[in-house]
């Protein structure tokens, strides 16, 4: 590098270090804000946002577990909120700083994992069901029992996630999704092994391409990902299985380590605005927990039963819960048996 180039770069360097605008650090799932969500917030509030994304809950946990991660606002799934609270990682939610909290749907004003929203603010939600190709599969699979039948020419996949595979097997057997009962769990393991020869793979959302292209005829899938596949290939259909299905939610939390709790709340409150939340839900194809935002969505989206199943369907859903250490350990052992069977 010659001297002139070095000197030319100095003003840029100054720009990095000398800005006096406060900086908020936000760590979120990938594809979970609209393209202008962050820039609009920066402009309106005169702040900078360091925004980064993760692909799995493990990535988030690994970062924030130390209590010294440098992030202010993160978006854990509901099952991670009680452990993070117990680990003293979360700052209490200051309702007086969140006037938009009332926009949330009533069910998300008091979710089972945080009934008084003391630690978390629901953001988006989803469910696990079955997506199938209606051009080829004529007998629609309406239940997990149907999914277990041999009707997909061995071109079906399940999620690569012990909670989902064991959960579906438990539901098929008529047991609770979050069962910690060893007998029920062992039966579920047998069910999961019995379907394995008819499965092509255990694979997560990446299977979308293969559903769209027709490689796979059916898959256990998360609702938002299913909807994205359906948008690309209208022959695909999504089913909420009749025995029941897993429900999960992602929530915004302010970390206890944050030194900008006020600004972090401003950001969460901004996300709760109807127009911001509906723009995010539209851009990402996810399901907002915000009732006011839902009313702003275009009719076809609002009435889409995959993204917004409505109270009758939802009544069959079961919220994923945090597993006890003993249940977690047994399930991991059974998962290893299933995967190596």
């Amino acid at each position, binding site marked *: 590098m010659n001297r002139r180039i070095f000197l030319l770069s100095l003003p840029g360097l100054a720009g990095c270090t000398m800005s006096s605008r406060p900086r908020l650090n936000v760590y979120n799932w990938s594809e979970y804000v609209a393209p202008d969500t962050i820039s609009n917030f920066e402009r309106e509030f005169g702040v900078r946002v360091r925004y980064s994304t993760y692909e799995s809950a493990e990535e988030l946990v690994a970062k924030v577990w130390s209590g010294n991660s440098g992030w202010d606002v993160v978006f854990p799934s509901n099952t991670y909120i009680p452990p993070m609270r117990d680990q003293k990682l979360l700052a209490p939610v200051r309702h007086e700083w969140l006037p938009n909290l009332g926009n949330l749907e009533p069910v998300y004003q008091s979710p089972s994992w945080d009934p008084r929203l003391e630690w978390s603010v629901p953001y988006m939600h989803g469910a696990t069901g079955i997506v199938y190709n209606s051009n080829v599969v004529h007998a629609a699979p309406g239940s997990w029992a149907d999914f277990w039948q041999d009707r997909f020419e061995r071109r079906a996949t399940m999620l690569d996630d012990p909670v989902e595979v064991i959960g579906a097997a438990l539901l098929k057997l008529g047991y609770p999704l979050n069962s910690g009962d060893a007998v029920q769990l062992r039966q579920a393991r047998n069910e999961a092994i019995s379907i394995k020869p008819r499965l092509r793979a255990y694979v997560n959302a990446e299977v979308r391409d293969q559903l769209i*292209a027709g490689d796979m005829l059916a898959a256990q899938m998360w609702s938002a990902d299913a909807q994205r596949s359906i948008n690309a290939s209208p022959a695909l259909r999504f089913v909420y299985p009749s025995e029941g299905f897993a429900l999960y939610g992602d929530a915004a939390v302010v970390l206890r380590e944050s030194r900008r709790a006020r600004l972090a709340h401003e950001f969460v409150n901004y996300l709760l605005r109807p127009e911001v939340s509906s723009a995010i839900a539209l851009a990402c194809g996810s399901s907002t927990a915000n009732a006011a935002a839902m009313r702003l969505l275009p009719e076809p989206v609002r009435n889409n039963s995959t993204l917004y199943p409505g109270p009758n369907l939802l009544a069959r859903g079961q919220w994923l819960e945090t597993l006890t*250490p003993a249940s*977690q350990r047994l399930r991991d052992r059974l998962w290893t048996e299933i995967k190596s069977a």
Partner: protein
Amino acid sequence: MTRLRAIFLAPAALVMGALFLAPLAIVAAYSLLTRGAYGGLSTPWTLENWARLADPIYGVILLRTVAISAVSTLLCLVLGFPLALFISRSGSRKNVYLNLVILPFWTSFLIRTYAWMFLLRDTGLINTALLALGVIHQPLPLLYNDGAVILGLVYANLPFMVLPLYATLERLDKSVLEAAADLGAKPWAELTRVTVPLSMPGILAGSILVFIPCLGAFLTPDLLGGGKSIMIGNVVQNQFTTARDWPFGAALSLALMAVVMLLLAAVVRRKGAALL
């Protein structure tokens, strides 16, 4: 003289100490702790994680892993030896060929693995071409099985076999080959009775360099195998991610390392002279 030696050794010793031995000590310490209620680490100190390794299921998975790794290594050798021989005898074009061998490293491993998925899947390039040519009438299930896993491992590790083989073959004393020919050895006899025995150090080095990464593989069985038949690397990875059982994961990975070291020690004891 010894002082000079110490000075020259210091940087490497420092790097090994700080970046290998210290983390290894931490892993060893983790393996003696207890999983916290929601993951993480907690006391008391215990040998329980090591006791859990006695569970036969992990032995079965380990055997499977060794088998898949051995087949992959053998295939690498079968494919890599002729290639290395060809390169070592191609005169001025050697460097071009060597660069071609390492060319895949210019792209991320993940992207190359996804590329294989696009080739192998039911609507992938290979099946589409075969269907169009009328060779098959149903797509072949090429992706998501052990064959795809072995293919992925061979593909990823072939350069590690070719390069040490090439280095050995390149240094092979040509006069020995000439002597063999003069004494009436046909090309095949020359290859099997002179070239191969003399290149044993390269074959061993290459096999070790391929076998060990295969043992620890977890991405390939996940992506190309569809997670249907796991290798020991997947079990370790799962402990650190989904199961959040770091102490058990630490014990598993140390046990895997011990297996590798025992295998290496056995090879070196028997073939040590050839390696040196």
